[in-house]
């Protein structure tokens, strides 16, 4: 509770500084601009926040977001080449295999046979993707579904490596950071632009830019994601398991919880939301530069989650806190852009310093309230 109060106070202070010192920032239009950014930053921050609660970490968010954005751009702007379909087809095929081997045992087929059986449809799916996708224009919603499946598959990949091979999350996802960035650049030598056809425009309006009662849609989508995650984290059995695993994985295991499965689920959620962030990124900014789209976002997202009360050791954090934590960065960035004395060169220093200050204040307040 104190943590939530702390981050709320921080958001209010930063907001007050922004509004107090730059009167033009008070306009409705600027508030909508800020709301759009909160929506965009909020989604990956929520994902990594849930993961941090469950005791994990993901450094590949920014790269994965960039990769999905680039893929989305490629799929929207024209047919893929055979080469470009390979990663997508492989991932979707693997999805098929895993889905099969998860579902078949439910109807009484032994696990080993289920895996063998589902290899077939998996391979078929890969092959179909590889044959069908090149030279084919995919409807945007199909592209979005495929890419969300792609991103979730990446999360599954992280989760499996971390739980089954006992690799360190930091290392696995750091390698991901490099791999997905490279893949994005290999997929497209040039920057991608959002096509200007009416379908895409309608999609952009629906997912990002239209307003409902003055609120940009992207903020509302983020709110919807936050609501779902809040139910999951604070109301459901899974949330309870994540907290327990984050606090003491061994105790959770001794309590009969399938800890590996729940950890993997947290990684899948994190990567899927990073993928969703990639789709929204491309729609919102209308372009994706393979070498830089989403770079550093993982750090912004992690910082946001930590400011919002997530403890990097796991087991702590709330959805409202994470959303508030995600709001700090856009506000700070705007202060830096507006203030003539800060300038671009000091921007990182100011952001870093302010976040550090906030963290210190937060810690002091928390400790002080504990001691009382």
């Amino acid at each position, binding site marked *: 509770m104190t943590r939530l109060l702390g981050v709320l106070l921080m958001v209010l202070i930063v907001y007050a*500084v922004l509004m*107090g010192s730059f009167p033009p920032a008070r306009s409705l239009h600027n508030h909508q601009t800020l709301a759009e950014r909160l929506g965009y930053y909020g989604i990956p921050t929520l994902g990594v926040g849930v993961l941090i609660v469950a005791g994990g970490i993901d450094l590949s968010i920014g790269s994965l977001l960039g990769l999905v954005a680039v893929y989305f751009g490629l799929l929207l702007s024209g047919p893929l080449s055979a080469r470009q379909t390979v990663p997508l087809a492989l991932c979707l095929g693997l999805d098929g295999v895993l889905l099969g081997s998860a579902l078949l045992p439910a109807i009484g087929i032994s696990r080993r046979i289920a895996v063998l059986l589902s290899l077939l449809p998996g391979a078929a799916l890969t092959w179909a993707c590889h044959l069908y996708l090149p030279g084919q224009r995919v409807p945007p919603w199909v592209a979005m579904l495929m890419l969300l499946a792609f991103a979730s598959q990446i999360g599954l990949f992280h989760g499996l490596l971390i739980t089954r091979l006992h690799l360190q999350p930091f290392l696995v996802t750091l390698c991901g950071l490099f791999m997905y960035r490279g893949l994005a650049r290999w997929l497209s030598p040039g920057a991608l632009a959002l096509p200007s056809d009416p379908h895409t425009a309608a999609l952009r309006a629906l997912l990002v830019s239209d307003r409902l009662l003055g609120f940009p849609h992207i903020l509302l989508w983020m709110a919807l994601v936050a609501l779902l995650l809040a139910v999951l984290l604070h109301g459901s059995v899974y949330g309870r398991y994540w907290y327990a695993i984050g606090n003491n994985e061994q105790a959770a295991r001794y309590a009969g919880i399938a800890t590996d499965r729940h950890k993997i689920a947290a990684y899948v959620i994190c990567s899927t939301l990073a993928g969703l962030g990639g789709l929204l*990124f491309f729609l919102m900014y209308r*372009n994706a530069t393979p070498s830089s789209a989403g770079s550093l976002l993982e750090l912004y997202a992690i910082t946001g989650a930590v400011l919002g009360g997530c403890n990097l050791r796991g087991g702590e954090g709330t959805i409202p806190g994470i959303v508030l934590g995600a709001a700090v960065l856009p506000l700070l960035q705007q202060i830096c852009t507006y203030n003539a004395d800060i300038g671009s060169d000091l*921007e990182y220093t100011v952001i870093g310093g302010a976040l550090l200050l906030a963290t210190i204040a937060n810690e002091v307040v928390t400790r002080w309230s504990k001691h009382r």
Partner: protein
Amino acid sequence: MKSLPSLRRLAAGLLLAVTVGCQQGQPRMRVAFVTNNPETFWTFAEKGCAKAEKEFGVEVVFRKPADGDAANQTMILDDLVNQDIKAIAVSVINPQGQSAHLKEVAAKVPLLTQDNDAPDCGRVCYLGTNNYKAGRAVGQLIKEALPDGGVLAVFVGQTEPLNARQRRQGMLDELAGKPEPKDINDLDYGPDGQMYGKYRLYRTYTDQPIGSQKATENASDALTDLAGEKNLCFVGLWAYNPPAILSAVRDKDKLGQVKIVGFDENEATVQGILDGHIYGTVVQNPFAFGYHAVRLMAALVKGDRSVLPNDGILYFPHRVITKDGGKDRISAAVFQKEIRELLTQ
């Protein structure tokens, strides 16, 4: 809840500090100059802006997107528009992708592009270098450095921005002896690994978002890859690339065995030419970008559109720097003096 008063005091203090910091320049009109990355190339443009700021009575907000990403630049532009900025000059990172957004910006404030153009975005004017022509000048320097042909490696931050494509293609067209195309904003992309005239383009190396450190590593790797080649020329197309190449070549003890041709006026590049390690460089005039962009914006916010060129394009001619100068050339020594004076102003 006892902490509230102290935190409130903190907030009030912060507020005061920031407010006071801002109010000094309030009465003047504010215009903005936005670059495409935080590299030192932009220091000259900033000097130009500062000079014009004094002469034309406007306040210039100079902003450099931290990681050279278009999304980051989009955010900065949105913020500037919301901040009551009266005119903006921007070096566009991804012209195709940003056009739709730039149109929205141009609908609110007069928009100029500089350095890197986005022809179809509703901008009132483009100021900059004809990068295609400058690229051809680079090709010319390569021909002089390796008259009998050879192998090229090209180093550039990213291949996406228009200026990078124009420079590279201009260079390749010059080497292949092709004529200038009609529309230099819609160029082919000459692939790596092919012959252009007597020259084989081995590879185009990119280094963003890491920048010059990665550029040095790229050059070093290229030296290893091409260790067996005799007639070798490394071309650095962004300001930090030639010094990065020079540093790698020096580390590998290959000074003099590799010809280096550069672009832009980095201090280390100029010194390299003076020392004879770099054959030559083609420089733009970023000081003029800054100065004239602010001059035009100052006029525009006062409603004076007569300053705009008819075709909406204001080219500042590139200059070619070699060690000894010559016809249409400037000697490195003279040029070094010129930029030093500029920076100490």
